[in-house]
């Protein structure tokens, strides 16, 4: 049975690919056919992937590979193939399942788009490439799919290309990730040169992740007298992973990529493409471990490559969380939160190994897809409004969306016990706590957890609570209420919410089934683990973090309803007299509202002064610090990293002009260049002579 499923696994990417091809030749009027094809193909893939997953769930130590010869070059052969092991099965099942839900959601979300057919074609292509990536048993095949994923995401992000920002964002995404991919390509080519193969596993043990190749790699001398080749290759591969998974400083494309349709954001930024980097690192983990120094009690593996990954992950987790605090676009908040969570995954991977990072990847995929689709639902319901300052009170009109969104928010924040995010993040913090190199990543991760809870609370307060704050002057008077989305959109939300809650039970310290599965072992039930001192201590820490974050969020944003979109952020507000913000209100019919609010606000201000010193002193001080950091971070982001990227592009352009200007049209200058070129080369050549 499992053998047969392993062979069938190739259909998982092939079916969506065929669907994409079929959609490509579908004429525009046959809209329904396109979505049916895509959803049908994805459904079948999902079926196969889930059965394969269930089959291997009982035998996690299995690794079934299916290789075939792709090329003979002289006397070498290059093999491609796919494999069924816990990692690929879990990923394939997750990607196809989440993908299926997103496809279904898109059917409702894109129903009115004129390029509906093309959209589903691109979606199917994306799904095919992503699924091919996760089951690939060859770095070469993985890379090919990797680039196809990039191409498809370029097409999807730029889908609304009539928006110039969308076109620019698509280009930025493609080129930035390509920068990382260059490292990946170099690492891959190097790996091939060093080991002679790019197949991960073969039955004969000649794969590049198997003992023979790894030993020879580990035994190789230092490259350029500086660094071990295995480390260098691992770091180059990590460049690609960092680009795809938006690690600082290659994260610049990710927030901009929000210009695409929301299901695309869900697909790309939640479940699949951004996770590909983490998956890649998990896949080549044996390579990262080459030359490892084992640390006795904490079963942590420490190598230079893993150390770099841990630090980058920790830094990204904190950095992006700070920025998320100061965002106003509902999707950009989620985008920065994704960057931050990806940082956590790398932190977990680097400090604790495959299982820790991958478990968070899997849980995150569900609740982040849920959040993105929820945001899409909100945006859809609020008539394409994306600025949280102009939302508010949505809870009343969109109860299903609200309920599911709240689940996602709590999972992301890591609310204890019932939400999967708690267990997976706790696992990461636990690993970071036990990391023998330094305690700082643990502290960074904990602080990040506080911030995560804080900005998610802020977002929920803005969006779902308080009065409705639609854009002034638009069509006030009979201001259209937000409306609940159709069932085709809410159903996926509910299903995802179920998983966001339910997945947690597979990864508790008492019964770490998922982790053991990913490590290729059987799990044992041991409640005793739950109560060991260290576990409890870390759990307690994260509990405190979450409580503190949510509390602070509520303190600033939830305690008093956010009345007006024009009102500055709750924290800024305390510095400026409230009425300054309100005096722009000119209409008589709003005067009443304004006076009431004014009174309310003045009263609140009075009590606040008392409150602050008695109750919330510490909270407020830290809150100021957070916001200060957040604004600094955002400033750095906008004027540092992002501007640096744009500046680099401009610099390239200027260099281009200079390069072209060398060609001035005078043949004499051409010939002079020839002569000077010759003389220079001759000098170079004779440098080392005699």
């Amino acid at each position, binding site marked *: 049975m499992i053998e047969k499923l392993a062979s069938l696994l190739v259909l998982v990417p092939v079916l969506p690919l065929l669907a994409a091809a079929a959609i490509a030749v579908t004429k525009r009027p046959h809209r329904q056919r396109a979505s049916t094809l895509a959803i049908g193909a994805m459904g079948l893939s999902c079926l196969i992937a889930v059965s394969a997953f269930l089959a291997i769930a009982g035998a996690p130590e299995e690794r079934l590979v299916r290789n075939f010869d792709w090329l003979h070059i002289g006397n070498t052969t290059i093999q491609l193939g796919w494999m069924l092991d816990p990692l690929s099965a879990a990923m394939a099942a997750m990607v196809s399942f989440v993908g299926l839900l997103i496809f279904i959601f898109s059917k409702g979300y894109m129903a009115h788009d004129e390029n509906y057919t093309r959209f589903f074609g691109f979606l199917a292509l994306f799904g095919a490439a992503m699924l091919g990536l996760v089951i690939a048993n060859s770095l070469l095949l993985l890379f090919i799919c990797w680039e196809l994923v990039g191409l498809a995401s370029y097409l999807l992000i730029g889908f609304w290309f009539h928006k110039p920002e969308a076109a620019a964002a698509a280009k930025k995404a493609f080129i930035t990730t390509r920068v990382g991919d260059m490292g990946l390509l170099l690492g891959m080519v190097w790996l091939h040169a060093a080991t002679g193969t790019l197949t991960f596993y073969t039955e004969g043990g000649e794969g590049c992740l198997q003992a023979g190749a790894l030993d020879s790699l580990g035994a190789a001398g230092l490259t350029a007298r500086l660094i071990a080749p295995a480390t260098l290759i691992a770091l180059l591969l990590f460049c690609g992973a960092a680009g795809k998974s938006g690690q600082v400083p290659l994260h610049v494309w990710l927030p901009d990529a929000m210009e695409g349709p929301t299901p695309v954001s869900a697909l790309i930024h939640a479940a699949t493409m951004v996770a590909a980097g983490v998956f890649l690192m998990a896949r080549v983990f044996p390579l990262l471990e080459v030359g490892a120094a084992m640390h006795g009690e904490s079963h942590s593996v420490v190598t230079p490559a893993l150390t770099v990954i841990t630090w980058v992950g920790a830094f990204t987790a904190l950095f992006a969380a700070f920025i998320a605090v100061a965002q106003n676009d509902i999707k950009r908040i989620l985008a920065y939160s994704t960057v931050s969570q990806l940082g956590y995954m790398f932190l977990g991977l680097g400090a604790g190994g495959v299982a820790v990072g991958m478990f968070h990847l899997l849980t995150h995929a569900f609740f982040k897809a849920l959040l993105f689709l929820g945001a899409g639902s909100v945006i859809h319901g609020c008539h394409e409004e994306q600025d949280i300052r102009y939302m508010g009170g949505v809870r009343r009109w969109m109860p299903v969306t609200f309920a599911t969104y709240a689940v996602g928010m709590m999972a992301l924040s890591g609310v204890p016990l019932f939400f999967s995010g708690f267990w997976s993040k706790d696992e990461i913090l636990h690993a970071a706590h036990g990391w023998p190199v330094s305690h700082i990543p643990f502290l960074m991760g904990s602080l990040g957890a506080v911030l995560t809870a804080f900005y998610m609370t802020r977002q929920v307060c803005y969006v779902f609570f308080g009065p409705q704050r639609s854009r002034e002057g638009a069509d006030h008077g009979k201001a259209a209420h937000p409306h609940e989305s159709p069932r085709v959109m809410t159903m996926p939300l509910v299903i995802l919410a179920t998983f966001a809650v339910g997945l947690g039970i597979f990864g508790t310290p008492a019964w770490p089934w998922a982790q053991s599965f990913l490590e290729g072992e059987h799990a044992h039930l041991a409640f005793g683990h739950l109560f060991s001192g260290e576990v409890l201590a870390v759990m307690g820490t994260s509990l405190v973090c979450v409580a503190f974050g949510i509390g602070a969020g509520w303190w600033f944003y939830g305690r008093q309803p956010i009345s007006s979109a024009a009102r500055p952020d709750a924290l800024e507000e305390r510095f400026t007299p409230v009425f300054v913000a309100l005096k722009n209100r000119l209409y008589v019919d709003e005067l009443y509202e304004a006076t009431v609010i004014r009174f309310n606000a003045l009263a609140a201000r009075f009590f606040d002064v008392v409150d602050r010193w008695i109750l919330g002193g510490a909270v407020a001080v830290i809150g100021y610090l957070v916001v200060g950091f957040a604004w600094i971070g955002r400033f750095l982001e906008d004027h540092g990293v992002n501007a640096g990227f744009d500046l680099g592009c401009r610099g390239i352009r200027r260099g281009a002009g200079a390069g072209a200007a060398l060609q001035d049209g005078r043949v*004499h200058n051409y010939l*002079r260049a020839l*002569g*000077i070129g*010759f*003389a220079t080369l*001759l*000098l170079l050549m*004779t440098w080392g002579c005699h």
Partner: protein
Amino acid sequence: MGFVFPLIATLTVLGAVGAMSFRKSIHAALSLVVALLGIAVTYLGLGAEFIALVQVLVYVGAVAILVVFVMQLTRSEGGQGEGMAVRPAALGVGTAGLVCGGLISCVVLLPDFRTPWPEKADVGLARLGEALTGDYVVALEGIGLLLTVAIIGAVLIALKRPNKEETPE
């Protein structure tokens, strides 16, 4: 006979310098003829009589005449409008000097090339012909093709009438 080579060489170099620096192009062409003849005489001195003959026939007899002919055709009494600004000229001469210096320092000063004058068998025409129809027959055919190409091209380009609509911009 020791003075013959320096004399010829000096003459050749002077001819070359003249060819490259006379303002009037017809003077330059005549000066080039002097240089080419000097080279032919050098060939004679080296014992390559046949090559010397070819040199005179092809270069002096054909190339130089052709150049002069084209000069008349284009009435380009060089010099006019050719006010060489100092800088580019200096740049050009400097570059050429650099290249020339490189060649001299790398090749001429090589100890290998101070070999004595070995005995040499005479290159009879018969041996040349034998080689041309033997080992070098492919190259001979190649050069035939090359000349065909050149003739087709030269005739075509030289006789090409500009289209009516195209005017120099």
